[in-house]
């Protein structure tokens, strides 16, 4: 008893082939979409790779690009097969590879689903990479004369302005590191010597933040320096001041950006997986309906189409038997060789 049997006449077969051909072209466009999303994600990771210590994992975007290309190829081939299925002479040349092609499609669908799951799961390693990278990014903010790190300041400033964030967890992270280069500190000044002498590492720490932390929506000009000193500024209370600098930390801002991106891409990949499953089932129907023509010479004869030739249980037992037979076949051969070896 076949799984989900459907009876076909010529008109129904033609309609099925045309519909599946249409769906294959949608699937090709979906493959292009997956490819371009992978490319976009890769570019976004590269743009901020400095902030992730240049060791972010490009595994997921590379996988998406590969999946997109394979999807385009497989779906274009499937569309061609559907197009040729209406002409018996052309379809004959595709018949032998159709079963293998369907197996490949099923394998590809599973892989695509796994990719979709990965999109949701890879958020966690990204979180750790971002935390580490941002901490180092802030540490190297002042090294504008060190080759290889001289653009860290600009990258960090532009990122804080674009994502409206300040520091790693919040703006107080800037109080814990020296973010002014020694080249611009006057070491003969008493104030500088005091500050450097006041901590173990000999760093020039201050309760100030870079200008990129400033919030343009604040009604007063930005207070960057002496932020914890209420008397240094008129009518200022740093406990209640909310609009002066960005309050969000950049790790949270970047993570929510990339997390949103990965969630969207993951949802799209799952949808593409559903589309691919639908076209695979459609192709199976086309194949089975053309193979079971009651009268092979007459194109107008009736036929049947199905998803599986036997029921699910029977198909699985068939597959298990086949695998056992293959295993036994190897054993018999080994036994035969051992017997031959002992005899001779």
């Amino acid at each position, binding site marked *: 008893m076949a799984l989900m049997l459907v009876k076909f006449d010529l008109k129904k077969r033609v309609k099925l082939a045309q519909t599946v051909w249409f769906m294959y072209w949608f699937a090709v466009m979906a493959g292009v979409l997956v490819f371009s999303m992978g490319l976009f994600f890769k570019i976004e990771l590269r743009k901020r790779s400095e902030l992730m210590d240049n060791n972010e994992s490009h595994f997921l975007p590379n996988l998406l690009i590969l999946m997109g290309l394979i999807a385009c190829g497989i779906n274009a081939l499937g569309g061609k097969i559907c197009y040729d299925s209406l002409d018996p002479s052309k379809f004959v040349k595709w018949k032998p590879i159709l079963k293998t092609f369907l197996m490949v499609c099923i394998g590809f669908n599973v892989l695509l689903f796994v990719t979709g799951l990965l999109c949701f799961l890879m958020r966690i390693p990204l979180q750790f990479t971002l935390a580490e990278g941002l901490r180092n990014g802030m540490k190297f903010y002042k090294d*504008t*004369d060190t080759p290889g790190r*001289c653009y860290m*300041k*600009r990258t960090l*400033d*532009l990122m804080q*302005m674009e994502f409206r964030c300040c520091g790693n967890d919040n703006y107080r992270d800037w109080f814990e590191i020296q*973010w*002014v*280069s020694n*080249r*611009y*500190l*006057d070491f003969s*000044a008493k104030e500088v010597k005091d500050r450097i002498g006041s901590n173990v590492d000999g760093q020039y720490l201050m309760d100030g933040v*870079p*200008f*990129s932390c*400033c919030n*343009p*929506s604040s*009604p*007063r*000009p*930005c207070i*960057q320096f002496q932020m914890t000193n209420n008397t240094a*500024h*008129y*009518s200022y209370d740093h406990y209640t001041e909310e609009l002066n600098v960005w309050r969000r930390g950049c790790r949270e801002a970047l993570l929510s950006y990339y997390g949103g991106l990965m969630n969207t891409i993951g949802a799209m990949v799952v949808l593409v997986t559903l589309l691919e499953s639908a076209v695979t089932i459609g192709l199976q129907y086309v194949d089975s309906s053309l193979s079971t023509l009651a009268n092979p010479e007459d194109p107008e004869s009736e036929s049947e189409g199905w998803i599986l030739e036997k029921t699910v249980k029977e198909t699985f037992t068939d597959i298990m038997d086949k695998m056992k037979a293959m295993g036994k076949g190897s054993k018999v051969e080994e036994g035969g060789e051992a017997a031959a070896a002992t005899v001779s």
Partner: protein
Amino acid sequence: MPFMPVKFNLPKRVKLAQGLWMIYWLSVIVGILIFSLGIFFKIELRKRSEMMDNNESHLVPNLLILVGLLACGVNAFGGKVCHDSLDPIKFAKWKPMLKPYLLLCCGFNALLLLTAMLCFLMQFAVYLTLAEGLKNSIKFYKDTDTPGRCFMKRTLDMTQIEFRCCGNNNFRDWFEVQWISNRYLDMSNDAVKDRVLSNVEGKYLMDSVPFSCCNPGSPRPCIQHHLTNNTAHYDYDHRIEELNIWTRGCREALFSYFSGMMNSIGVLVIATIILESVDMAGLKYLSTALETMEDPENPECESEGWLLEKGVKETFSELFAKLKTLGKTNQVEEGADAQEAAT
């Protein structure tokens, strides 16, 4: 002697009709493009209308939107006529409308030419509006508690950050206005009182700029205050320092952005004029080729197509003669009326 006659047989006519139909659909797409560019331009003007004192002229984007819609309609109609031209029965119903339609297309081309010229010329108006608007914006930067102007600070800060510019002409414009609100100035402080008294208008002026003027590409943390005082900062010479804050003025930055946009749109409109002229010439050829068929019953006969029935000079002299007769008819009528009135 017709102007630029071309002989047609059936395959040539069919090819002309099909080619013309495709060009008409291309023109519809170009019309949609002009419409969307008009909307984009309008949105950009609205986004920065605060910088232009809310009195920028929306003539060019409105005209572009209108022209885009008209182009879509005119070209879709032309495409339909071409599509029907291969079938004599369908084409018969379009025949009487062709002459007025071609005149309409001529008028539309003139409108397109006007639009292109406006795109290039209105840039002067934009420049003047920007200069005035930015000056006022800088003046109102501090009024974050005045309703109607409370977002000026944010808008100006975001503009300076996005366009990488500072002040109107350059950063020194900030030295001439008070950009800190009085609410955040401690009027009992001696330093503040000195500054306020040091100028006629009682404004708190200083040689500082807002943080949005800062250049992230500078190797040292941004120096915003005491910009002209070399001794206030270690290893600083304000005469040779180039990377600290943006050196370009916002008027120049905004103007180059808008003028680039208007120039591109103007070039596109000129390309549309050329495309529309090609459309008109093709339609004229097609309609004359279908009218001059020797044997109307036989679709496979030969015919001739042209742009003008007589030469260019003769057509113009005929046009003038027509206009003159129109005028003379009026005069004759007046004379007859006067005679009747007299008798």
